[in-house]
């Protein structure tokens, strides 16, 4: 399974809470083992919805949406991404964040040209 970040432009929102919740519930019910809606972030200022998915392919994600949903919040971009948890750096050992109060030390790679 790949991880994707799907960006929507939210052009129209249901005016009723029931319609909104029912629509989003419908989308959730249309997801399946091959396309899992993990989490979303809504940026009201830019009218964008950023959704994290785990899916077999972008096409499988598209297939979960109804036409009206893609009309109300069209998908602008689907990008394959990798997750990075900052907490991993706490486990990295050596001269990491925990040792120096937050600054991340990077070890210089030996210059192989010489």
């Amino acid at each position, binding site marked *: 399974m790949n991880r994707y970040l799907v960006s929507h432009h939210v052009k129209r*929102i249901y005016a009723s809470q029931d*319609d909104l919740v029912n629509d989003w519930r419908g989308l959730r019910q249309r997801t399946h083992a091959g396309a899992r809606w993990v989490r979303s972030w809504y940026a009201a200022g830019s009218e964008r919805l950023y959704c994290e998915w785990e899916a077999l392919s972008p096409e499988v994600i598209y297939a979960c949406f109804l036409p009206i949903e893609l009309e109300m919040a069209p998908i602008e971009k689907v990008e394959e991404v990798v997750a990075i948890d900052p907490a991993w750096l706490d486990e990295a050992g050596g001269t990491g964040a925990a040792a120096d109060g937050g600054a991340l030390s990077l070890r210089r790679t030996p210059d192989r040209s010489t």
Partner: protein
Amino acid sequence: MSAEFPSQAWVEALVRVLNSDARYGEIARSWEGDLLFVIKPESDRAAETLFTHVYLDLWHGKCRSARYFPPGEGGLPKPAFALTAGFAHFAAVLGGSLDPMQAMLTRRLQVSGNMAYILRNVPVVLDFVRCCRLAAGAA
């Protein structure tokens, strides 16, 4: 500044917060819409069936007027938005243990009025909740 929710003292504290908080004033500078809290009695106090209401006239980052309606009191205004929930859910939002967005999307907090306007103005809603928490002494 802390006061028990819901009460006249809490409403007065909230109005003071809303009208003095620079951050709320800035974030809510375009907000237009009055609001009614409809607070249902606790389920374990089923004998008490009367609803409590709090009315807030929110306009361009200020609270123009507010009123506490004790249980059963009539003469309620017809606001642009009404938020209905049991006391426990209101308390959970105000106490920080229930996310406001989660409360709306799970319908624990029922919204009457234009949901699209609320979502378009989510930062205002979240900062309003912050002010409610300040008034309740939870923040």
